[in-house]
């Protein structure tokens, strides 16, 4: 079948050539379609093709008329315009809208497409592209399916969220002992420290991650979305999900994103109103902050601490690790459970109209509900207090922020115990806490014991 004469390419060629070309094409085409009619009688797809034949021949007739005009009309330009109009009309009449393609073949009519269009979803299969309408359609049907199974979407970052990796050559002397403690690839589900010699890397999984994935997979369809490259992402997926039960083909790496240095939900085949994101980097999700649950960074290796400018000893150097039951992942899992429960069991109204972003906000607002906070010696004076990240974070957690002290205040957040407000707090028996109290509360989804965040006496920063 040689009827793939999509017009846009030819519209630029001169009228005469085009007509001749179409004539030739039509001849081969019509003989082809005759053959088809004999072979397959009532087949939808073939019908499409035959319809195509018809309008193709119409177009040619029209063009022939135009050609005559072209000869008669001394001002060829007007007829050229006319002809192009006609072509545009016939393109609109094209039956298949080519909603998506595989290796440049339309996935419905099987025609070869001239231009690459749509969003690449190469993480599912190389060469697969989907148009916007198709993505919307898939999201809709998938959403219904998912809600029926009481599930939502969860997009997970890898580095510093679920695990920590380092190059072998970046290991410090103090960390050499790790090389003797790596777990075997024979029994991945039980291990947590792996040495990937072929990638020259060592990877430590965050404590609790196995339980986290298992429990979260009952509430969510999970994606991996990392800024690492594709081979790395797949290797890590193998460590996290050795039996291939959680992620399937839902591993997205930076090679699959549509924008540089940004992560976007446009390649995720899920409604944005049902997606939650776990990531340690807020800036990567500029467009989807409402979906984001910010994670405390997991720094196991010394190189990772250095990379982020911390001068403290890493967990590996201290030969310790995050707590399994009190760590970031278990806290987040608790919050996720709460969100999931509220989304499906507590909200009224139609399931389709619910928005997990609203639920996320509501759940977050419960954490510091009832707290009234005054800041002292925290913000630089030149910055508007209520635009400072800590102020915003506290309000998102449900606390009320005030500029001046009054009897209803419950917490004074201060860097310095010597300020007027700090002394007032001590006198009035209010909680006096370090700003890290708010950050920790934010990461752990629970009001933290105030006594763990004392404020140092002098004017110096305790950090």
């Amino acid at each position: 079948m040689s009827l793939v004469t999509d017009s846009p390419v030819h519209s630029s060629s001169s009228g005469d050539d085009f007509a001749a070309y179409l004539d030739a094409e039509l001849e081969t085409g019509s003989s082809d379609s005759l053959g088809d009619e004999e072979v397959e009688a009532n087949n939808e797809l073939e019908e499409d093709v035959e319809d195509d034949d018809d309008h193709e021949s119409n177009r040619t007739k029209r063009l022939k008329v135009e050609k005559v005009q072209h000869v008669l009309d001394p001002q060829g330009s007007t007829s050229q315009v006319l002809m192009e109009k006609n072509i545009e009309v016939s393109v609109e009449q094209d039956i298949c809208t080519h909603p998506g393609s595989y290796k440049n073949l339309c996935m419905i009519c099987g025609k070869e497409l001239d231009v690459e269009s749509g969003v690449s979803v190469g993480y599912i299969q190389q060469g697969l592209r989907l148009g916007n309408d198709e993505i919307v359609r898939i999201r809709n049907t998938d959403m219904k399916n998912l809600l029926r199974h009481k599930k939502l979407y969860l997009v997970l970052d890898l580095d510093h969220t679920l695990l920590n990796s380092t190059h072998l050559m970046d290991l410090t002397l103090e960390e050499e002992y790790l090389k003797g403690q790596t777990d075997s690839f024979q029994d991945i589900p039980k291990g947590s420290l792996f040495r990937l010699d072929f990638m020259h890397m060592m990877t430590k999984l965050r404590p609790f991650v196995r339980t986290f994935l298992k429990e979260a997979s009952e509430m969510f369809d999970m994606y991996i979305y990392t800024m690492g490259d594709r081979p790395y992402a797949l290797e890590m997926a193998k460590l996290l999900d050795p039996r291939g039960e959680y992620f399937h083909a839902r591993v997205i790496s930076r090679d699959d994103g549509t924008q540089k240095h940004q992560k976007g939900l446009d390649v995720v085949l899920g409604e944005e109103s049902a997606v939650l994101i776990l990531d340690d980097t807020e800036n990567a999700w500029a467009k989807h902050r409402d979906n984001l649950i910010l994670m405390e960074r997991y720094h196991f290796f010394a190189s990772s601490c250095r990379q982020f400018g911390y001068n403290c000893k890493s967990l590996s150097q201290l030969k310790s690790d995050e707590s399994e039951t009190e760590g970031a992942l278990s806290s987040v899992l608790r919050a996720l459970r709460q969100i999931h429960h509220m989304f499906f069991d507590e909200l009224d109204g139609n399931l389709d109209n619910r928005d997990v972003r609203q639920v996320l906000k509501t759940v977050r607002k419960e954490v510091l509900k009832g707290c009234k906070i005054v800041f002292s010696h925290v913000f630089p004076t030149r910055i508007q207090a209520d635009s400072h990240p800590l102020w915003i974070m506290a309000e998102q957690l449900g606390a009320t922020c005030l500029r001046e002290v009054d009897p209803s205040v419950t917490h004074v957040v201060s860097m310095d115990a010597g300020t007027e407000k700090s002394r007032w707090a001590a006198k009035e028996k209010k909680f006096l806490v370090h700003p890290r109290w708010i950050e920790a509360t934010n990461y752990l989804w629970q009001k933290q014991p105030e006594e763990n965040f004392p404020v140092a006496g002098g004017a110096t920063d305790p950090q």
Partner: protein
Amino acid sequence: MFFHIVLERNMQLHPRHFGRNLRENLVSKLMKDVEGTCSGRHGFVVAITGIENVGKGLIRDGTGFVTFPVKYQCVVFRPFKGEILEAVVTMVNKMGFFAEAGPVQIFVSNHLIPDDMEFQSGDIPNYTTSDGSVKIQKDTEVRLKIIGTRVDATEIFCIGTIKDDFLGVINDPAAV
């Protein structure tokens, strides 16, 4: 479709292979080089069945290698539009499924899967009819029709459909 055709290839042979086994060496090298490859024009070379004729060798200047023009018979496999193929499903997702017929990979979009089959996510993603009697998942064998092919110099890609009479599952390993 399979074809039994005659192809020609210029084989370069190192002089160390010369001697009474020259012809055997030439043939085994030919098999190694050609079988399993894909040319856009002829399709996949499945197997060499015989040698028609080995032409006169020509010494390459400077290297000592000798080029022999070899005519050989072989079985090639090339999918065509409209052809019915039997294929094994390799991956199922919400966009449709991928299947392999030998070396050819075929994509069947969910538009071209019968409307009564619905996608089910889970441990083993699959397409199932509402009564559960027919199921397409990984390793299922399906009969499908090719509706489009794209031929590269070294690869062939296909779009298929199972939305037609007598197409669909022919053997489901999960049901056995």
